[in-house]
């Protein structure tokens, strides 16, 4: 099942104390694609990413990355294996300069030439970071911090980036811009991406394959092209609904996930 996947989750269950956040999630990410997990608040999206990157140890199930079982491994080891996590809320080091933040991303790497090349690469993606090179990261705007967090992840030279709600708190224009660059990173660097988003419209437009998560369980998976046409996705995630005979409708249809 997993021969062509770069990342495979099998029956992963994670909990915060007595509260089970994800209840048996199985998903696969193929190399070179952008995969997305859609879901509402509290569906367990971020928990999936935390479980993959080793921040949270699952109660059950396995995470296999590049054929290696990385379940509940030390996050530092996982980063070295080529998997970077851009956390929700960006989490830049506010008192370090932009440059130092980026170098923190490259902390585990030895080849200085390559690090220097990657630094130029991210400055190419986000010229504003070059301008603010020496400024404290805490002084950047939200959008710039998001750019920095993504760049910091790239500095670890990952094959797979976990991207947790890059649109959080950003203006539509900035969101659009960041997503464009996310696609560029994927196309140009060949980096595989697993994107978690509440902004379903955006995510379904940039991603190739999508999973829908509800209450800690996957209820639907398909190519994004097909997901966009599903009735439940259109109604519950894209906000398109038939208004009916009255021209307005408050009641919700039952989700059937077909």
């Amino acid at each position, binding site marked *: 099942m997993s021969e062509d996947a770069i990342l495979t989750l099998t*029956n992963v269950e994670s909990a915060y104390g007595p509260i089970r956040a994800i209840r*048996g999630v199985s998903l696969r990410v193929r190399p070179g694609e952008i995969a997305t997990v859609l879901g509402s608040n509290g569906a367990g999206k971020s928990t999936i990413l935390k479980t993959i990157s080793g921040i949270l140890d699952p109660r*059950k199930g396995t995470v296999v990355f590049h054929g290696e079982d990385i379940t509940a491994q030390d996050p530092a080891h996982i980063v070295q294996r080529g998997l970077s996590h851009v956390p929700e809320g960006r989490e830049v080091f506010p008192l370090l300069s932009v440059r130092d933040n980026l170098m923190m991303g490259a902390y585990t790497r030895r080849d200085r030439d390559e690090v220097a090349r990657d630094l130029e690469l991210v400055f190419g993606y986000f010229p504003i970071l070059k301008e603010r090179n020496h400024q404290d990261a805490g002084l950047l705007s939200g959008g710039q911090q998001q750019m920095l967090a993504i760049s910091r992840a790239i500095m670890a030279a990952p094959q797979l980036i976990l991207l947790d709600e890059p649109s959080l708190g950003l203006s539509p224009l900035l969101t659009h811009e960041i997503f464009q660059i996310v696609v560029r990173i994927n196309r140009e660097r060949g980096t595989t991406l697993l994107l978690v988003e509440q902004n379903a419209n955006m995510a379904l437009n940039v991603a190739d394959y999508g*999973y829908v998560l509800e209450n800690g369980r996957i209820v*639907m998976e398909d190519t994004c092209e097909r997901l966009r046409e599903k009735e439940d996705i259109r109604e519950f995630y894209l906000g398109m609904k038939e208004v009916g*005979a009255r021209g307005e*409708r*408050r009641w919700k249809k039952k989700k059937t*996930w077909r």
Partner: protein
Amino acid sequence: MSNLWDLRHLQPRHDIVVPGDTVHEMFWNAVQARGEKTFMREKVLGIWRAWSWNRTADAVREMTMGLVALGFESGECASILSNTVVDWVLSDLAIMSGGGVSNGIYPTDAASQVLYLCEDSATRVLFVEDEEQLDKALEVRARLPLLRKIVVFDMEGLSHFADPMVLSLSRLQALGRAYDAEHPGEFERRRTSRGPDDLAILIYTSGTTGRPKGAMHSHRGLVYVTRGYNTLIAQVEGDERMCFLPLCHVAERLGGEFFAIYTGAILNFVENPDTVPENVREIAPTAFTAVPRVWEKFYSAVTIAVAEAGRAQQLLYRWALGVGQRVADRVLAEQPVPAALKLEFTLARWLALNNVRKLIGIHRARLLVTGAAPISPDLVRWYLALGVPMLEVWGQTESGGASTGMLASRIKPGSIGPACAFNEVKVDGATSELLIRGPNVFMGYLNQPEKTAETIDAEGWLHTGDVGAVDEDGYFRITDRMRDIIITAGGKNITPSEIENELKFSPYITDAVVIGDKRAYLTVLIMIDQENVEKYAQDNDVPFSNYASLTRARQVLDLIQGEVDRTNKKFARVEQIKSFRLIETQLTAEDEELTPTMKLKRSLVQKKYAPLIESMYR
């Protein structure tokens, strides 16, 4: 709390508890007799609130006069499109009190079905539950020239909506109050405008084949059968009942609403179809009628809970259930239960069985009644082992619900009991079809005299379509629906429901349809129990994402194969299931494959899944 060896509290009652020759007169007389006592209970903002008989009467009178104010004439039809809620009962009583004909429409029906039912019944006023149901009515009203008004129970989300045809229930009541004040004596005139022989209600049969047919019941028939229920096992004033099955269905309409009006049992309405288990635990009904699907659900919840429990608890449960079974075996064999065994059972109840009863919410239940679909005898035995008498009844829409019923004095699982005292039941000599005759048999199908003639023969026997047999004690057994009987290519007659019931006894199988008519061997289409199979997959590290992938997982198929194998052991060689397929779509009540009581519609399923079925014969 009951013990199986002493069921003296389940007695018939033959006198008339509340007089009245029409359903609504029965209600008005009950109001006189019971006044401030509680009739119904519903949960409002999380708190159970009571409806006394007086309060109910006030609301019904206002609504009746409201209908009159809207120009609703005696003999006209009004329909109710709603889930099972208090307002449903109020509307039903108001329609009948106004001299009208009351018809229920399933809230899961699509707009097109609402159109057909309103058209066929010539509905003049349509009661709808809320915004969601209103939208269906609005979608089709242009094609319903007879429809005058739509009354909405719950106006949430509609405060800005204005339409000359639509009014709220409270508006209807206000209209009625004003009209009543201006027209003294009109209410009494309307109330008595219809006699016992007039048409009272329509119950559309869910119709596994063809269009739904509107079964017509007169007041006389309904009152007769409602009184008749008490001659089977009496319900008493203050008995607590759950009201949760669709009120459009004969089981809840007669066995729930009308029977409660007659006997004074309290109707407790569930919040919505999803909260049934919680609400049952809160109320702990003393008399509980449900369909096999509900009993299966409770059973599998307990089975799963036991599987999750510790080793000691599992052993305790098994021992306690074993004791219960020994008690049940003796009671069923009509042997006395020895004192030592009684003592052992008391201990078993105290240590385990009482908790199981509490987990379900049947710890106060005097009796459980099952009907409306065949049930596995093993499931009945399980409830008996808990010490709760479960009695099966059999009947149909056309006979006003129960026509045979198990006697508490002599329980035979697998049988549907002898004929109720109020009607005749016999097995047709030639076809083995069960026939019913009595005043409870319906008046016929609305607008379909030819169908009526096919159903009631010249001697007044109702042809039920069920095939069965009767034993020397007069106890009937159903083998199957007549048209469902399978004749294999080898010429063997097979009754699929027995096999299906055995399969459904598994906590992992919700419903099954056995196939094999004119085929070389039997196969089965299975609908899995999502919750329990998901749990199984989770516990056994079976990867799955959505429902379809769950039904395709190797281990799940193996699990179901195990259940099929277990079933096969109980049947003869010609009755062996050779192959099965799982239905990959998660079906809901809105889907055409399911009846409103969540049973698979055999003929429709066979047509719809024809390629899947064919794949088992290749």
